[in-house]
């Protein structure tokens, strides 16, 4: 027998590893990726490949030459950041912009905070929001679905369903008069619409979300609470004035609500660590999203809402601690 190993208990470990968690999320994103490949064609592949490659490359360069730390590019996190960033971009975005977005995501949002596990904000969302603010025109010119899937540039572009509603209502139209311009709920569910790469088909995203729940990569607390908050708030407005407000179902299916709820807000690093905290966090995201969508300047607010709530996570972790066992009753001294 070889020399026995001496270490402290426990001597067993579950089969879960950080790497497996990352790859599980990638598996969950596959159906949505396939849908966007079908809808946008080669553009979807190009955007994703560029985002992934540049995220991994920047992580490598920064770790090797700038920080001179151990390389962790194989842990799957940079790969995942790349995919998630791509999912938040239009399929016809110029390639150099994607690279800039990746640099911001990996360089600023992740590495400058200390790398995996230390970042406060979701790197992919920081990259997206940076691009959205810097290049608003390119970031909001969405190629229309299906009809121009083989073309990369100069495609027919149009607004997202949320954009159509927002603009229409501002110019005095009503939901009834807009009905012909916005896709049906069924189209939204399947993904026959305009928008970022990954927010196309709510169905495909939900499928992946269910996979993540079954694999226990995420818990139900954040997605369910966030979507429920959005449904309730938009539902109230809709019930009060259905002509000036879109239905809650439309709000859930259009835009990045599902993508955000299952894949962005649930990012392990930037979400709270307790179940209680997760619920507070998700209510906050739902609330801010609805405020931006109904009253803000942007038609869509999920990214901003998640980033704003990311900033509150350390505070939430401090104030919403698990209840200590035995803290109900105190023993007398």
């Amino acid at each position, binding site marked *: 027998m070889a020399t026995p190993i001496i270490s402290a208990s426990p001597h067993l470990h579950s089969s879960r590893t950080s790497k497996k968690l990352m790859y599980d999320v990638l598996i969950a994103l596959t159906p949505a990726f396939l849908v966007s490949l079908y809808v946008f064609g080669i553009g979807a592949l190009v955007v994703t490949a560029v985002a992934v490659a540049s995220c991994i490359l920047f992580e490598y360069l920064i770790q090797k030459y700038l920080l001179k730390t151990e390389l962790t590019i194989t842990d799957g996190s940079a790969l995942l950041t790349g995919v998630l960033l791509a999912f938040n971009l239009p399929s016809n975005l110029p390639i150099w912009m994607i690279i800039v977005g990746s640099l911001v995501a990996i360089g600023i949002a992740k590495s400058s905070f200390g790398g995996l596990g230390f970042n406060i904000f979701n790197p992919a969302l920081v990259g997206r929001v940076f691009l959205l603010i810097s290049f608003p025109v390119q970031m909001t010119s969405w190629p229309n679905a299906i009809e121009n899937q083989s073309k990369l540039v100069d495609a027919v572009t149009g607004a997202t369903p949320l954009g159509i509603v927002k603009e229409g209502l501002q110019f005095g139209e009503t939901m009834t008069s807009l009905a012909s311009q916005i896709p049906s709920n069924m189209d939204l569910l399947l993904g026959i619409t305009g928008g970022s790469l990954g927010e196309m088909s709510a169905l495909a995203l939900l499928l992946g979300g269910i996979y993540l729940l079954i694999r226990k990569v995420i818990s139900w607390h954040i997605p369910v609470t966030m979507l429920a908050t959005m449904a309730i708030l938009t539902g109230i407005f809709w019930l009060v004035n259905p002509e000036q407000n879109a239905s809650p179902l439309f709000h859930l299916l259009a835009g990045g609500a599902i993508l955000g709820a299952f894949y962005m807000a649930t990012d392990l690093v930037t979400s709270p660590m*307790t179940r209680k905290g997760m619920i507070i966090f998700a209510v906050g995201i739902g609330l801010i999203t609805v405020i931006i969508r109904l009253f803000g300047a942007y038609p869509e607010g999920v990214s901003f809402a998640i980033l704003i709530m990311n900033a509150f996570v350390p505070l939430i972790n401090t104030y919403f601690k698990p209840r200590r066992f035995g803290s109900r009753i105190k023993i007398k001294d």
Partner: protein
Amino acid sequence: MLKTFSKGGIHPAENKLTSTKEIKKLDTPKTVYVPISQHIGIPSEIVVAKKDKVEIGQVIAKSAGFVSANIHSPVAGVVTKLDKVFDSRGYQIQCIVIKTDAKNPVNFEDIVYPLKKEIKLSPAEILKHITDSGIVGLGGATFPTHVKLNVNEDKKLDHLIINGVECEPYLTADHRLMLERTDEILIGVKILLHALQIDKAVIGIENNKKDAIALFKKLTKDEKGISVVALAVKYPQGGEKQLVKAILNREVPKNGLPLDVGVIVHNVGTIYAIYQAVQHDKPLIERVVTVTGKKLENPSNFWVKIGTPVSDLLEAVGGVPEDTRKILNGGPMMGKAIKKLKTPVTKGTSGIVLLSDDDAHRGESTNCIRCGECVYVCPMGLEPHLLMNLTEKHLWERTCAEDIMTCIECGSCSYVCPSHRPLLDYIRFGKKLTNECKIN
């Protein structure tokens, strides 16, 4: 729905390889190494000298304080020396080395004990028998039993809980004992009920031991005060506080004892030892030990004399497999990796588990990804990631405020951590230094 505790917990693979194997008697070893500190508390005081002849069951070290226990010779023989051996924690401890007298025929186990049902002794006499017999908690904590039974008058005690959970993977010592010594255990329960002057006892058994549950249910059908509860399998249900919560839904206060909610918990092995001590005057000199491992030819359960070197046990199961890299005293969740095969079995040794090369290594520790799994599985409602972080920074006031001292060291946090962070290692260290800080 089966009962269980509500907060945290994990489900490691059970690997109970020996649950159908009858307990065999291990041959009396040629030499025994009896440590004088086999319990929590003050080490016992040696009362024999080198070259003394000792009888089986003779007191060789006596209780040296309130929290201490007698130690008896497990064999008949001659004290060859007072030496130091490595214990399972890796410390050298004082022990009494006794060479077995092969010719001495007097052996406790040669006497056939008929089941003695009648309880004649008074509570005080029962307590005295338990004290004299050197009984300690055999579940692994090894707290002297007589101290635990010494209930302060102002505590309102109403339940005795018998811990037959055995939530550690691999171990089956308690399981087999419950199947093979069922009548004795039930009498032991009655002895304790009588000694404590209460009338309710609950036997808690996890549902992976259905045969034991059925057997106890059958035998307690007509017993008024004794009930059997099948518990959903979840680690660490064998922890006292978790068990009280699971069975009675009472939450033991922070820094408190089950006694604070009117409960006293004893392991089934301890109950059997109490039966032996009270009914047959037999001190605690042997116990059931599971010797197991995936690669072992013949994993078994044994009756083992206290002080038997681990090497003797391993020989009895066909030797150590080639690729063994870890030998554990206890289960894989809370047991200790031992270095020397001469390390003796003590009162608290419930099993020897061998892990082969594929199971013996820790994964490489990477950055915390703040997934919160450690928080979710902690049965005490702690935040292991935070405690590790604070320990790294030596912030003892904060570790104290974050209740580090209530950690029961079950290891669930380290078990689940996807980044393989050594959470419990740090917490143990943090507990030690926080405690020193508090004292100063």
